[in-house]
Every structure is written in C-alpha cells, then in structure tokens.
C-alpha cells in the first residue's frame, strides 16, 4: 500500500473508464444520432448506480482493499462519469433550441443521478450491512 500503487490503481481504472465512455459515446452517436446526449446521460446514471453500490460494499466489508476501491470508484467510475461533458451537452442542447430536452437533461441528470446512487446503496445493502 503506497502512493505509487495507489496511483497505478487509479490510472488503470481511469483508462478503462474513460475508454468505456469514449466508445459508448461514439457508438451511441452512430446509432441514435446527436440530437440528444443519450450516452452521457446513461453513463452518468449507471455510474451513479455503481458508485452507490461499490461505496456501500467497500465500507461494508472489513479489510476491503484500498487499491480496489481506488481502481473501481476513483479510477473507473470517476473517469467513466463526467461533469464537464454534461455541462457542455447542456449548452449544445440549449443552442439547438430544444428547451424541454435541455431542462430534462440538465435537471434530470442530477436528480436521477442522486436517485441512482440511493438505488445502488439499497441494492448493495442486500449483500452487506
């Protein structure tokens, strides 16, 4: 357990998370078009679900390795989800004059994201205290 192994754990998760986001986004744009940021929306929501789950698991199991937590949560989920793309997507939607979609995406990502975290915690509590 050292700073170097922590950094490697984070970096490994980060590369996997960011590449997942990249490929999912490109695939989604090809399949569903660019009128709505379906990929970022889905990514942030699933990422929130997962973070609620893995946080609860990590705090519910004694001796849960720090490196694993850094790999999964800080590394993967932290890089898989994105706030900056969410912000710029909102601007893009706004510029496309889709006011309803803009409001839904901007507020909905946040609110449903929070709901997803709560759901993730609840699911994990089925397995740990």
């Amino acid at each position, binding site marked *: 357990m050292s700073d170097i192994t922590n950094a490697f754990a*984070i970096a490994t998760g980060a590369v996997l998370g960011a590449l997942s986001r*990249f490929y999912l986004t490109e695939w989604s744009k090809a399949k569903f078009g660019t009128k709505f940021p379906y990929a970022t929306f889905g990514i942030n929501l699933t990422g929130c679900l997962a973070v609620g789950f893995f946080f609860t698991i990590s705090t519910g199991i004694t001796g849960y390795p720090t490196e694993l937590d850094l790999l999964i949560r800080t*590394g993967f989920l932290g890089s898989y989800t994105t706030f*900056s793309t969410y912000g710029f997507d909102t*601007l893009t939607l706004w510029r496309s004059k889709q006011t309803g979609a803009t409001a839904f995406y901007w507020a909905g990502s946040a609110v449903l994201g*929070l709901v997803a975290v709560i759901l993730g915690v609840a699911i994990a509590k089925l397995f740990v205290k």
Partner: protein
Amino acid sequence: MDFLKGRYALAVAIGATFGALSRFYVIEGAKAIFGKDFGFYGTFFINVSGCLLIAYILTLATENFRIISPELRLMTTTGFCGAYTTFSTYGLESKAFLDKGDITTLSIYFVGSAIAGMISIQIGVLLARATAQKSES
C-alpha cells in the same frame, strides 16, 4: 468505425490518466486542508474548473479559432476533462448530505454545482471567443 483507431484510444488514455490523478490529488488536498469531510470542496472545484476548460477548448476547436487535431481534442476533453470531472462522486457526496439531513448544504452543493458548472461553461465559451483570433483556413 473510425473511432476504433488506436491513436484515438491512446490519446484518451493519456488524458484520462492525468485527469483522474489530478482529481484524486485535488480532493485529497481539500481533505488535508479543510478536513476529512470536506473532500466535496475539491469535487466542486474540479467540476467547475473542468466545465470551464472543456467549454474553452471545444469553443476554440469548433468555432475555428484554432486548428486542434482530433487526437489533441480527445486527449484534453474526452480524456482529461472527462476523467478530471466526475458525476459519480458528486452524486455520492450529495446523497451523504441527504442522509445526514443537511438539506442546506445539499441544496447549495447539489444545485450549486449544476448552476456553477453552467456558468463556467458560458465563461469558457466567452474566454475562447475573446482571447483567440480566427485562424486563417
């Protein structure tokens, strides 16, 4: 399936490594300075500054102020900004405030991050337009 090119993946990977590690150190730094429960100061700073950065870079790129190669754009925005900012940590921290019944901090942080993020996006756009000259192309 142009995006499956290895060089694009490499660009994203490099940016993401820097972004995630920066995020980690900023949040750890915030905890060291303000206390163990105040990592969210770091998350807030990260998400707001990341919004500014992505808007700045993408505006430079798309409004033709600068020629930015796809690899560079991917490294700095999809890679760095995408990994530097985080939605999952924001969600988890917001839930913690909800659990504690700290509705005041929840409101400020949860709503405030979203609003401050959009303000930063707009500032990034304006900065790009104000500071760059149109490139000859």
